[in-house]
């Protein structure tokens, strides 16, 4: 299979090079055949890479330890299911995955490029294939996943214990696809700029692809957080680790873009700004790949032993230069159609929202780079940790949430202060009432109260919009449900966006709950002993042990009581992997429901708090060191995921053709003579 994999990669390299060069050469030579052939080459490059991935997966599944990468990242003892996904557990395989998924995504992007971007398509292909060629060159020269093993003793080393988790099936593929996928909206803009389509021809393609990539990245980040929550054993889900940061930075910039692109769509403004945002997101995604692939910053996620970091740094700098040159070249043609009329308008609120998102991005970037600066300045590496990020980014994120409640209620162009007061009075009133209620009910954490107040304002703003829209539909004779649906389907991007705002509210509830109200205790318990934390009593019953070829597993049998009534039996787990000299834990999490819905499993009931148990250590004398945490509202973090997905799907769902045509078709154009024998590509 190594031969097939190597042949497929080399073939893909040749095809991608031909696709990129042929597209531009075809335009310059005026050859439609060459342009079409080059485009087809981009399609089959994706096919060749799919074969290469298939070859590597096959090598894993059949335990072909004659390949060094397979020998280093699998063994016969690991679960068969993990052999299917172990291909992206290491540097070389994940790079092959990135290259393949990016080329396949490019293939789709090239295929669905709208007709209005026809003149730009060859340049879009050239940009996308240029990136593929870079990845492929690194693969075949510096990080060959099919390189032969130095020796084959019929045994493999195995996959990193931290990666043996169900999250492995979803988090890495989504996260990597989202990160490299940022290049696709950038390619639409870059190609359009090179072709001179400097108005809004690229807008829809860039917007739709950016939302798709943003949703992929969102899902990857959220599932990564869930993975960290259940396996890393510290009870948290986000630690502002450099690799988390480099993935979240493009996400933040894309979030800013998704908002400001609506201003360009509606008002013909922020064109330059939007291009700058996409360029920034693209360069930040390249920065992420650099840090991940052996950059100078240490992280639990990065491939620290990799030597290809400098190559990725070079490519990132090239990407930055390319984006800058293209932007400056077309700068004079990117003016907005009109100026900002008033700061009391929706477009102004989007602009402020953008600045805030960029604020969080730059704070995060500064935190990532600070160890390098400190080393350069003082010859001493100083890292910044979660409290620093929380202290600076926390208030900015709170301001973003407040703006989420205000922005959607402001009209486009301008409004008077009186009108704004009328629109905003209900959300502000509900927000103040929420804060007062929380204070009266005994919650005295100031920032948490303000945070919940802001979330209440966002929710009431969405509900107010929906109520007014639905009532308008009701006046037209529809019932409430049909009226609501007609309102949503009448403006899918907007109402899909509101559903995403509801997901943010769920996420916000989880973040505030787990950060401000969590309780934790580290205790040593002998069999039969109990420990009480808040309303819960945790009773340690016994330890069980299992020895396997690759690991020694132990788990504690624990009963949990609330008000002297047993509510759960849990078995937090810990295993030691001698080959890696590494331990891995699996937390036991019990969702204590806010409302117990009959017939639903407890993890689906709306959660009040998680009781979270991790065995830090099993002692020789039979005692266990248990970390017991109460994580309020943690359930809301994970429920935000499906809401995100629903909102994004509604926002992306294509409108019927008639709705999309905002400008009447000009019938006379059909009778106009067409120039030349144009390729219908």
């Amino acid at each position, binding site marked *: 299979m*190594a*031969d*097939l994999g190597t*042949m*497929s990669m080399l*073939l893909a390299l040749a*095809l991608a090079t*031909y696709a990129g060069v042929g597209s531009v050469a*075809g*335009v310059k030579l*005026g*050859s*439609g*055949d*060459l*342009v*079409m*052939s*080059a485009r*087809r*080459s981009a*399609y*089959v490059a994706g*096919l*060749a890479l799919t*074969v290469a991935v298939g070859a590597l997966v096959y090598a894993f599944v059949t335990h072909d330890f004659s390949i060094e990468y397979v020998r280093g990242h699998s063994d016969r003892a690991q679960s068969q299911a993990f052999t299917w996904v172990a291909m992206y557990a290491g540097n070389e395989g994940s790079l092959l995955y990135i290259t393949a998924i990016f080329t396949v995504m490019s293939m789709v992007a090239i295929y669905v490029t*709208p*007709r*209005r971007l*026809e*003149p730009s398509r*060859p340049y879009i292909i050239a940009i996308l294939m240029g990136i593929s060629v870079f990845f492929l060159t690194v693969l075949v020269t510096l990080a060959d996943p099919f390189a032969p093993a130095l020796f084959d003793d019929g045994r493999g080393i195995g996959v990193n214990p931290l990666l043996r988790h169900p999250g492995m099936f979803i988090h890495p593929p989504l996260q990597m696809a989202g990160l490299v996928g940022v290049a696709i909206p950038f390619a639409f803009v870059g190609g359009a700029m090179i*072709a*001179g*389509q400097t*108005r*809004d*021809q690229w*807008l*829809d393609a860039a917007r739709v692809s950016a939302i798709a990539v943003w949703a992929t990245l969102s899902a990857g980040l959220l599932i990564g957080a869930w993975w960290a929550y259940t396996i890393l054993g510290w009870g948290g889900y986000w630690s502002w680790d450099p690799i988390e940061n480099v993935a979240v930075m493009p996400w933040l910039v894309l979030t800013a873009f998704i908002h400001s692109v609506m201003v360009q*769509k509606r008002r*013909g403004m922020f064109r330059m700004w939007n291009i700058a945002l996409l360029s920034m997101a693209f360069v930040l995604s390249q920065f992420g790949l650099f840090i991940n692939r052996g950059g100078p910053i240490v992280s639990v996620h990065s491939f620290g032993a990799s030597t290809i970091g400098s190559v990725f740094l070079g490519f990132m700098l090239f990407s930055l230069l390319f984006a800058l040159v293209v932007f400056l070249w077309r700068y004079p*043609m990117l003016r907005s159609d009109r100026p900002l009329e008033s700061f009391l308008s929706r477009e102004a609120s989007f602009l402020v929202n953008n600045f805030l998102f960029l604020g969080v991005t730059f704070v995060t970037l500064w935190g990532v780079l600070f160890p390098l600066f400190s080393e350069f300045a003082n010859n001493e590496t100083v890292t910044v940790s979660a409290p620093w990020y929380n202290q600076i980014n926390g208030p900015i994120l709170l301001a973003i949430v407040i703006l989420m409640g205000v922005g959607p209620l402001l009209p486009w162009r301008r409004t008077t202060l009186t009108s704004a007061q009328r629109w905003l009075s209900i959300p502000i009133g509900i927000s103040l009432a929420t804060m007062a209620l929380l204070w009266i009910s005994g919650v005295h954490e100031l920032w948490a109260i303000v945070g919940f107040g802001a979330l209440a304002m966002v929710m009431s703003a969405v509900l107010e919009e929906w109520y007014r829209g639905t009532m308008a539909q009701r006046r037209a004779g529809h019932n409430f449900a049909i009226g609501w649906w007609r309102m949503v389907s009448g403006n899918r991007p907007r109402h899909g966006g509101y559903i995403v705002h509801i997901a943010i509210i769920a996420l916000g509830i989880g973040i505030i709950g787990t950060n401000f109200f969590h309780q934790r205790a580290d205790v040593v318990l002998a069999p039969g002993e109990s420990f009480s934390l808040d309303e819960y009593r945790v009773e340690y019953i016994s330890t069980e042990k299992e020895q396997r070829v690759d690991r020694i597993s132990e788990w504690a049998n624990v009963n949990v009581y609330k008000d002297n009534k047993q509510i759960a039996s849990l078995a937090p787990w810990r295993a030691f992997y001698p080959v890696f000299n590494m331990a891995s834990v699996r937390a036991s999490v019990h969702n204590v429901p806010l409302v117990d819905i009959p017939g639903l499993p407890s993890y689906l009931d709306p959660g009040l708090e998680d009781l979270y148990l991790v065995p830090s250590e099993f002692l020789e004398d039979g005692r266990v060191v248990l970390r017991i945490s109460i994580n309020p509202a943690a359930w809301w973090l994970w429920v935000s995921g499906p809401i995100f997905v629903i909102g994004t799907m509604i926002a992306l769902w294509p409108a019927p053709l008639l709705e*999309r*045509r*905002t*400008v*009447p078709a*000009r019938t*006379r*154009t059909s*009778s*106009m*003579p*067409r*120039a*030349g*024998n*144009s*390729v219908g590509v």
Partner: protein
Amino acid sequence: MPIALGAIVALISLIVIAIPFIRRSGAVLSARYTGEVERLTRLRSDLYDQIGQLQTDYGTNTVTDEDYQHQLLELRIGAAETIRLLDQLGYEDEPQDAPAALKREVLEEEIAALRQVDSGRNIGTGRDSESGGA
């Protein structure tokens, strides 16, 4: 076996990318690829901008009535001619390009109205009349 599979993938790839040449459609790229569309759309944008600027100047009394009417007519004729050439190249503004498309619609309506008023004067070219365009 793997090498044979690889060879099959390579062969399929070769056939797929060679098909456009085998068919020899002889298609030459339309002007939209070779920069003509780019030039014309940019020209059209510039003309719109100039019209906007002229209207602003007129609003602030920096041009006389007579100069304003004269310059406006010239710019509109230029814009109409540019639009006609773009139409001949098969270029259509897409729906999302609404600001430009709307401007064009308005401009064409105005020009059509002007032509009706002053039917004795040909504000377009001979080719305009043939195509029935603005």
